[in-house]
Every structure is written in structure tokens, then in C-alpha cells.
């Protein structure tokens, strides 16, 4: 078991290193000269050259990569080209906002979605299941901006219940923060709940088709117990994976929702940085996203292992 975990950890580190390589090469081959962009099109060739030296752009790429990588390892993410402030400072503020949004959504959506998924599995084939399944299928296929705009139209424009723009001021009371968060969180809860519930139902109904579930039924185990005990314990691994993928999406993929509600999250920061060719920020964001994904998957896999007696117990079948 310990060996397994160490292997997993090493693999995660390897993937992270590959991500760093991909991010660096990716930002490297993007056209557009950073120095030229930073200084504007009227800059003299001399000043551009000076800035290039200042930024270290005249060094060979391999050297700059190593420099960047070791910087990150020591907590030095470099300096933003546009704002001239340390990237780490810019990140930490945005990370807080993103954790707030993603965390709140996850805490609401995950239990809700799994309960809905299990509930729908209880009456497979019944009208509740059909109606519920079509609803979550419809919701999971709906673009986020439709849900977001409808939410704004209803709650902000028609009813005036919540602000349309989720502006987070540092000194705001928790009530104001909660009000500001409501619409983006509600939108994302709908999106994520639909996804996770749909996958939960698919995973459980697949398990219910297996012989062990039929055997439980033939022992007289009631259906709710087959779902909540026999199937659920087998579903831990795949479910953890689904949740991990959705949390990763909440951290890095919610740029549309952040845009609609003008929410200052990480994804927006990265999109803005891309448009401004602020490479240190782009690289830092990409690394954070990659790391979040890798860590979440690592956690999900480890959780799955913990529930697998094949790995946690050492006795193997005797004979044969």
C-alpha cells in the first residue's frame, strides 16, 4: 500500500514536470514579442532591446526554463510585465477568491448531486427516474452562459434580489459577500450538480447490472440497500474521480461564469494576462491549474485505493 502511494506520488511529480515543460514551450512558441507589446508599437528598437535584456529574453530558452523552474520551486514566480508587481502577490489574492467560489460550490453540489444520482438509481425505469434523468441530461448539456444569463435576468433584473455583478470588496461584511456570491455559486451549483448526478447514476446503474447486485437482490436485500451499500462501496473510486474532475473545472474552467458576473477569479486573471501577453502570469496560472488537477486526481486515486481491499490487505488467495 505504502509502495503504491509512493509510486503514485512520483508519477504525479513526473506529470507536473511535464506540465511545466508544456507550459513553458507553449508560452514560448506563442507569436508576439513580449517586449514589443509591453512598450507599445512606437517604442524604439533600442528600448525594446534593453527591455529584452532586462527580462532575460536574450538568454537561450533552455537556460530561461531552468531559471523559471528553480524560481518556482523556491516560491519565486517572477514579476508581472504589465503591473510590475510580483506574480505571487497577484496570484494569492485571486486564489483566495477562486477557493471561495469553488469551495462553496463543491460543498453544496457534491453531496446534493450524489444524493440525486443515488435517488434516481433507486427507481430505474420509473417515471421519477425518467423525468429526473432527462432533466439532469438537459441541464448538463446546457451552456453555462444560458444558466448564468437567465439567473441574472430573473434574480438581478426582474426581482432585484441579488447583485448582477459579484464584486468582492476586501472589507465587506459576510452578508454582502454572501449576496455577491449567490448568483455565481447558484449557476455553478446547477452546472456541476447536473454533471455529477448524471455520472453517479451512470456508474451506479452499471454496477447494478453486475452479478453481485443480482445476487444481493436474490438474497432479499431491499433495493435501497443494494444501492446505498453494495453498489456505493464499489462506486467510491469512479465517483471520487468524477468529483475531482469537476472541482478541477471549478478552479480553472469557469472563465465564462467569472466573466458574466465580473468575478475576480484565477481563470479571468489568466485570460486577461494572455491578452496582455503577460507571460509570467500566464505561466504561473497554467502551473497552478495543472498542479490542482494533478493533486485532485492523486487524491481521488488514493481514496479509491483506500476502499479497495485488494490493495489494503496483504493476504492473497491461497491455493490454485
Amino acid at each position, binding site marked *: 500500500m505504502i509502495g503504491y502511494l509512493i509510486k503514485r506520488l512520483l508519477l504525479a511529480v513526473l506529470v507536473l514536470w511535464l506540465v511545466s515543460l508544456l507550459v513553458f514551450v507553449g508560452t514560448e512558441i506563442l507569436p508576439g514579442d513580449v517586449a514589443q507589446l509591453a512598450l507599445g508599437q512606437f517604442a524604439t528598437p533600442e528600448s525594446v532591446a534593453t527591455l529584452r535584456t532586462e527580462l532575460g529574453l536574450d538568454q537561450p530558452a533552455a537556460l530561461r526554463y531552468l531559471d523559471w523552474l528553480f524560481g518556482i520551486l523556491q516560491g519565486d514566480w517572477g514579476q508581472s510585465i504589465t503591473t510590475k508587481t510580483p506574480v505571487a502577490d497577484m496570484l494569492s489574492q485571486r486564489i483566495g477568491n477562486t477557493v471561495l467560489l469553488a469551495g462553496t460550490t463543491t460543498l453544496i453540489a457534491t453531496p446534493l448531486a450524489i444524493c440525486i444520482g443515488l435517488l434516481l438509481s433507486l427507481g430505474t425505469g420509473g417515471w421519477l427516474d425518467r423525468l429526473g434523468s432527462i432533466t439532469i441530461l438537459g441541464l448538463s448539456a446546457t451552456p453555462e452562459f444560458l444558466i448564468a444569463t437567465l439567473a441574472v435576468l430573473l434574480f438581478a433584473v426582474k426581482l432585484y434580489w441579488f447583485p448582477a455583478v459579484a464584486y468582492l470588496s476586501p472589507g465587506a461584511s459576510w452578508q454582502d459577500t454572501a449576496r455577491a456570491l449567490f448568483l455565481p455559486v447558484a449557476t455553478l451549483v446547477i452546472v456541476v450538480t447536473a454533471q455529477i448526478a448524471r455520472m453517479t447514476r451512470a456508474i451506479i446503474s452499471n454496477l447494478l447490472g453486475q452479478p*453481485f447486485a443480482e445476487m*444481493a437482490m*436474490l438474497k*432479499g436485500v*431491499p433495493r435501497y440497500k443494494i444501492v446505498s451499500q453494495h453498489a456505493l462501496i464499489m462506486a467510491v473510486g469512479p465517483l471520487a474521480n468524477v468529483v475531482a474532475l469537476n472541482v478541477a473545472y471549478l478552479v480553472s474552467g469557469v472563465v465564462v461564469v467569472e466573466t458574466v458576473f465580473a468575478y475576480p477569479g484565477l481563470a479571468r486573471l489568466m485570460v486577461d494576462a494572455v491578452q496582455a501577453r503577460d507571460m509570467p502570469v500566464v505561466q504561473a496560472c497554467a502551473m497552478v491549474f495543472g498542479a490542482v488537477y494533478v493533486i485532485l486526481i492523486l487524491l481521488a486515486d488514493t481514496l479509491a485505493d483506500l476502499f479497495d481491499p*485488494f490493495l489494503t490487505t496483504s493476504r492473497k488467495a*491461497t491455493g*490454485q
Partner: protein
Amino acid sequence: MTQNPVLEFDRLVIAQTSGGKSILNDISLSVAKGEVLALIGESGSGKTSLALSALGRIRPGLMVRHGNVRLAGLDMIRATEQELRHRRGKSISYIAQSAAMSFNQRMRLDRQVTEPAAVHGAMPAMAAIKRAHALYASLGLPDPGQIGARFPHEVSGGQLQRFMIAMGLLLDPDLVVCDEPTSALDVTTQIEVLRALKTGIRENGTAALFVSHDLAVVAQVADRIAVLKRGDLIECASTTEILENPQHDYTRELIRACQRWPVTARDLVAKKPPAAAEGAIEARGIVAGYGSVTNNKPKIEILKGVSLNVARGRVVAIIGESGSGKSTLARVIAGLHAPAAGTITLSGKTLADRGSGRTRDEMRRIQMVFQSADTALNAKHSVGRILGRVLDFFGDKSPGRIAELLEMVNLPAEYARRKPSQLSGGEKQRVNLARALAARPEVLICDEITSALDTVVAASIIRLVEDLRDRLDLAILFISHDMATVAALADQVVVLKQGVVVENGAAPDVLLRPQADYTRLLLGSVPELRIGWLEDTAPGAPAL
């Protein structure tokens, strides 16, 4: 009919929901209190569907079109979910073929075995555990007080099957339904489980519905036998009656097929002696397995230095239980699995380890037939296309060759247009043979080609292979775990145990005068079609 039956099928018709094809036709049967009724039939005869209907379970895609099933008076077909639940696991229980699939891999065995008690509130948890442990002991499980704390993957297949029997007997049901409870097991394990099952049923006075394809197994436990063929009940009588005075042709055929075992010297007179000349195919010192190879030894060693040779016109059989490495040997010879050490020679010429290193002609001369014709034939191609591709590939342009090949395996020429899904199991295996023959091989490797077939069809495939050996002068390597099949076909027998040849000799010598203890145990464990055989066979060494 019987007085106060525990279970009664009354003119039951079960059909497919789409298309409406009946898989069970007008079945009327009953099981009396404490009686063991066996259902015997080939695969696809609908026997599992009949067994499950006793528990009120109709699998998706099927429906009851007529009749009913009564368990102690309750109509199980029209019963409510609630009524079914109260009976399942309590008054009727189910023992499935594959214990490995039927247990939840993530729950401890004790919990699963005692679950019927928990869901029915039939006895306190402690009492249930005690009862389970007592059953473990009577079923011959080692360390009955502790073993239930394990997970399913921590016990062997034979042990797991016994846990399922314990689960079925836990609440003293009126009836247990056993669906091929020993078919997935090796013979030496099968006899132990069979003995345990019989004891369990007899001690508790439980009635049983025992489903099997193996008449010899059924004869050991059943009071009465019902014979099913393609959804029809063709005969039902007491076990003695069926064995001594069968009424139906199919039953007679079934009995004849089972009577090939045990073999006598007279059955073996026609065997050819091992050829003195060098074999058409020869394996020398084969070591093979999985994982990294160091010093010519793989990390997980499956074959530990196996040598044998097969001459043309001879059948050499390899017998062994699961894990003996017999299939790995076939794959090594066929070039599908590179050995870590040893050589394969074809008519004196050493072959490359891997298929990719062999010439097209060398590949043509060695052909292999796989166990499951279902997966060995590409389901998306017609029979004609499957055979035609082999001919094209090897540049065989003889006209009418496809019809000739089909004729060779006793199939009509118009089968060329059919898809594998339109063939029966036996027909598929014939096409599979024809596909191998299309290459005009010298060596034919048959890997368990009859084990997915029922007794009667298997017997006809054996006759076909025998005929092909003589007609085409083939060197045949015949891999099987079924002793009766081997006895009928083999000129020479090689006994393999955990990657080592324990015995190798002419068929009459090995089968009638076995030298190795293991061979003796193996031969002694094969059920004979004789009432009382199980009792006559002394419990041998524990399952290996």
C-alpha cells in the same frame, strides 16, 4: 404430481420481449419437500432462466408469456416486490455458478454470508455469525472461526463457492436453487465442493433445484432428473429411471456421451503408439511466464522447462488444471508468447520465438483453434469472409475451396453467407476449425475447444477432430482439462502441473496405469455416471 410441492412450475412460457421468441416452452415441473430435482440441458436450453424464475426473477429482455411459478402456494411471477423480498434468502435461496462474480469484492465474507439474516431480521447478528461458522465447519472450510473475516479475493475459488453454499443454507430455506454450482471449478476442487454441497442439503433436509450440463455430476446428488432441450422439457423421471431406462433419444445420446468415462482398456486399443521418428512439432525446455526475465527465468514463472513432441497423424493431449500453464504452452508454440528459454522446432527447423520472426509459410503450417468460438470468430464478418480472408492471405486460389472446407467440418455450403451470431455453439466451433484448416496446416493446436460446449455437441466435435487427423495427417496438440474428452481422442497424454510435466506417455499407460500421485488424483476426481460414485470415492488429498 407430487403432494404439497415446495415449488411448482405450471405451464410456464418465458419469451424474449423483442421478437417474442420463446426460450422456455410450456414447462410443468414440481419439487417436493426435501427433494433434489436436477435440471439438465445444454447451454442455451433456458435452464438458468427457469432456475431464476423460481425466485421470481425474470432478467431484463425476457418476459413470462404464460403460466406461473408457485413457491409454497405464492405465485412468484405476479408477487409484489415486497412479497418476493420476504421469501428470497429466507424460504428460497440461490447459489450461482461464479462465486467470484457474485460476491461483493469489498465486503468481508461473514457480512455477506449473514446478510440474509440481517435483512430478514431472522436471527440476532451473533447467532447468525455462529450459524455461519458452524456451516463453514460442516462444509470443510479451514479455520471456520476466522476465515469469514477475509475478503473474497483472499480465499480460493473452491472456498468461495463453499461460502456461497453457506450463504444459501444460512436461514434453512425450504428450497435452494443451485445454478451450475461446480462447473467453474477444477475437477479436484469440484469433487470437494460437490461433497460439501450434498452434505449441506442432506443435513438440513432442504429441497433443491440443481441446474447443470453435466449428467455425471447431477447423478450424484439428484433424486429426480428433468431433461431440457432448447426450451422444451423432454423427459422427467427418477435418477435411476433416467439412467437405466431413458425414453428420449436426446437423453440416450447424453448418457452415451457421459459413459465414455471411466475408460477401459478396450476403449483404448485403437490408440497409436507414440511415434519413434522426430515430431512434426517439438518443444524443448520451454520456460515462460510474465515480468522481467533474468537468467532465462521470468519473474512470474508459468512454464518451468516443458518438453514434448507431436508427430503427424497423432493427437497429443495436455491435461492440467487451471494454473498448470497449458494454455501458455499453446501460445508459446503458436508464437503468441515469447518464451524466456527453450526452442520450438517445426519439422526439424528451429522457429523464431515470436510470430513476427517467423516466415509466412511457417505461420501457415501451425494453426490454432481457440476455446471460445464466440470470440475467435469476428462477429462482424460472414463465415465466407472469415474463411476467404485466410485463403486470400496465403494465396490459395483453388475454386470451391470454401464449400470444400465447410463440407470438411460437416456444414452445408450455404453457411458461407451466415454471420457467427446465426450459428449454434457447435456450428461456430466447426467454422473455427474450418478457419484453421483453410491454411492447410501440418500442426493443429486445439486449446480447450470443447469446454464451452455441452456434452453431446462436444462428442461430435471430438469425432470430427479424430476424422480430420486421419484424413489430413495432422499433428494435433490437444489441450483440455476434461479427462473423458482426452481419453476419447489422445494417442499420447502429457500431464502438466504448475508448469512441470509430471507424466508423459502413451494414452493407455497414463490413463489406466498412472504413475504420478497427481495423475491418480486427477483421474479419480472425474465424476462417473453412476449413482453412489461420490460416496465410493474416498475423500482424497485436499484440493490442490
